[in-house]
């Protein structure tokens, strides 16, 4: 039997609030087969580029394609690691320096699966999801962010 996970929306307008992360953690207290959670948070840095400071990144995405791709990544990660659950949230719109723009949350019975799955999911999100970021400087000029 093929079990189908429905593609979930990972996009949220604006930054990811610490209180949202707390709620997400709290909801797992009834899943008493979980022994370890791994969380990655991406935060917007106030990089200084040629003398100008980044004050925000404005994220855009090819949303329909990104959600299809994220669904494939999710299926592949669940096939590879014995996870209890996985949650992914990525911001769209203008995210100020110091705010959270990416939240990846994996949980498993033993820690190794959650840790490895989280790391691999973060790498795949950065490499494979059609998302772009415009680094906005103090004087409102901008440049397009490049992932390393």
């Amino acid at each position: 039997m093929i079990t189908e996970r429905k593609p979930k929306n990972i996009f949220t307008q604006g930054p990811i609030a610490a209180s949202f992360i707390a709620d997400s953690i709290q909801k797992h207290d009834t899943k008493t087969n979980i022994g370890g959670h791994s969380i990655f948070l991406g935060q917007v840095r106030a990089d200084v580029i040629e003398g100008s400071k980044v004050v925000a990144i404005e994220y855009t995405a090819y949303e329909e394609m990104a959600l299809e791709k994220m669904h494939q990544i999710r299926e592949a990660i669940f096939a590879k690691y014995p996870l209890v659950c996985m949650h992914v949230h990525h911001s769209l719109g203008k995210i100020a320096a110091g705010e959270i723009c990416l939240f990846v949350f994996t949980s498993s019975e033993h820690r190794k699966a959650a840790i490895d799955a989280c790391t691999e999911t973060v790498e795949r999100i950065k490499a494979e999801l059609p998302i772009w970021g415009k680094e906005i400087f103090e004087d409102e000029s901008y440049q397009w962010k490049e992932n390393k």
Partner: protein
Amino acid sequence: MPVQVIVFGQLTDIMGNSPVTIENAVDTTDLIDQLNQRYPALVNKPYIIAVDKQIVTGHTTLSGNNTVALLPPFAGG
């Protein structure tokens, strides 16, 4: 056959944020040639091509009613 072209990221600086319709393009090579003529700044920009949300490489036939997306390097996270 008309093709809808959408672009993202730095390519919006060249082609704007609205879809561009190319009236007749038989394949992706033909399409890119036409776009390069219309938007000369596009010529040396790095991007990959997705036809109907699937990444394609090389010479891909367009069957009509396709949406072609030009995707510059991703920068999520």
